[in-house]
């Protein structure tokens, strides 16, 4: 189908963007990579009167390392994250997630911030943000504020972004010694949204797990931090009893909801399978 008619503006500064956002209010949508938004427009699932294209705000792009922080600008393309040696070295979780994000032609356009702000419950980058508890920097005319990723995702396509606010960047803690990351997902076709996926980041040293964050996605209306599962792994060694404890913890952590293709039971089962695979993979990763 074709998108319904809209007007378009491409501001070249934040001041101009905020003026336009104020002028058009809820009639306006921000256009970043457009890989979800333009699809929604074409299907007429959305019909905003105005699109504000933020691709002219070049200060929103780029990857920076400053001390123990890796800062990813909202307009950074998936392809740039995928190819970045800095991301590979300092944010291995994000590096490992990138090949799962759609397909090459979409990664060339799609942006980090677009994926996070859109908040699809089965998307990879929101799960990475929650696992690493990134600080999400939001800007508005009134100033800037930081929201932790673990408080940012409020529901299906719902976030803490308020009217008049724009996502500027995410600040991730840089990889620390002894820590590792594993990213896995199950999908019918490579590059599709996950049936179930898992992002794991934590310490594995001398055969012992500690400080592990496990985030499941595709199982509920937002990425789910599996607190009980992490507790089951704390100070644990890999053993059959641990896998049993992990499976029952995963089931306690998740209130899985089914979708049109997969029942809640299927997803819960697959989450347990993935958890076990991911934990085994954590023990086999090389140290940073």
């Amino acid at each position, binding site marked *: 189908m074709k998108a319904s008619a809209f007007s378009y503006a491409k501001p070249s500064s934040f001041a101009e963007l905020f003026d336009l956002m104020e002028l058009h209010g809820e009639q306006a949508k921000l256009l970043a990579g457009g890989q979800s938004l333009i699809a929604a427009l074409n299907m007429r699932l959305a019909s905003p009167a*105005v699109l504000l294209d933020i691709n002219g705000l070049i200060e929103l792009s780029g990857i920076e390392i400053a001390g123990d922080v890796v800062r990813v600008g909202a307009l950074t393309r998936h392809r740039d994250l995928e190819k970045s040696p800095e991301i590979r070295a300092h944010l291995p979780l994000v590096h490992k997630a990138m090949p799962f994000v759609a*397909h*090459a*032609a*979409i990664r*060339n356009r799609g942006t980090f911030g677009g994926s996070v702000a859109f908040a699809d419950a089965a998307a990879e980058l929101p799960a990475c943000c929650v696992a690493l508890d990134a600080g999400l920097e939001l800007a508005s005319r009134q100033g800037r504020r930081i929201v932790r990723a673990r408080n940012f995702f409020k529901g299906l396509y719902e976030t803490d972004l308020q009217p008049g606010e724009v996502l500027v960047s995410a600040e991730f803690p840089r990889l620390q010694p002894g820590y590792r990351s594993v990213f896995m997902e199950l999908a019918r076709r490579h590059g599709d949204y996950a049936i179930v996926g898992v992002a794991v980041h934590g310490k594995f040293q001398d055969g012992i797990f500690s400080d592990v964050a496990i985030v499941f996605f595709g199982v509920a209306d937002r990425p789910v931090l599996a607190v009980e599962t992490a507790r089951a792994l704390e100070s644990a060694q890999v053993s059959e009893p641990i896998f049993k404890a992990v499976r029952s913890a995963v089931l306690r952590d998740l209130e899985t909801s089914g979708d049109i293709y997969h029942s809640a039971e299927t997803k819960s089962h697959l989450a347990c399978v993935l958890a076990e695979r991911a934990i085994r993979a954590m023990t086999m990763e090389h140290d940073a």
Partner: protein
Amino acid sequence: MTNARDEFDLRLTVNNVEVARRVPARMHLADFLREELGLTGTHLGCEHGICGACTVRVNGEIVRGCLMLAIQADGAAVETVEGVSESGEIADLQEAFHQRNALQCGFCTPGMLLAAADLVKRDPLASRDQIREHMSGNFCRCTGYHSIVDAVEAVCRARTGDARGRT
């Protein structure tokens, strides 16, 4: 302040030819190529980014033509299957698709060729699994994909001088 408008004057190059047109904001790039320029080699299947039939190149990178607005290509260099066919860039891919029966109805073929051209140029050492992964964004409802992977693999091997690609 820049005002939001419904129509824009667009200037870009398409297959190395300079083009200027007035376009509505809502028009996506694939429609612009097909309807305004008559370049109907770029196909529209799903029109929401799933099928890959509308794959074109913008500034050297493959994109979904249905998920980019025409006005977002202002100032860009766009290449379509017509351009890369005429330049001879994908002649070996086209020949391999023909030899390996990598198309039947041909609807997906322009998108397949552009996606494949991206891979054989950047990563001609790709394994079959990597070829499958790279081509996973393009649907084909005729071939079952094996012959497409065969064709892309043959070109990868031939371009790197591996004799297996020459059969």
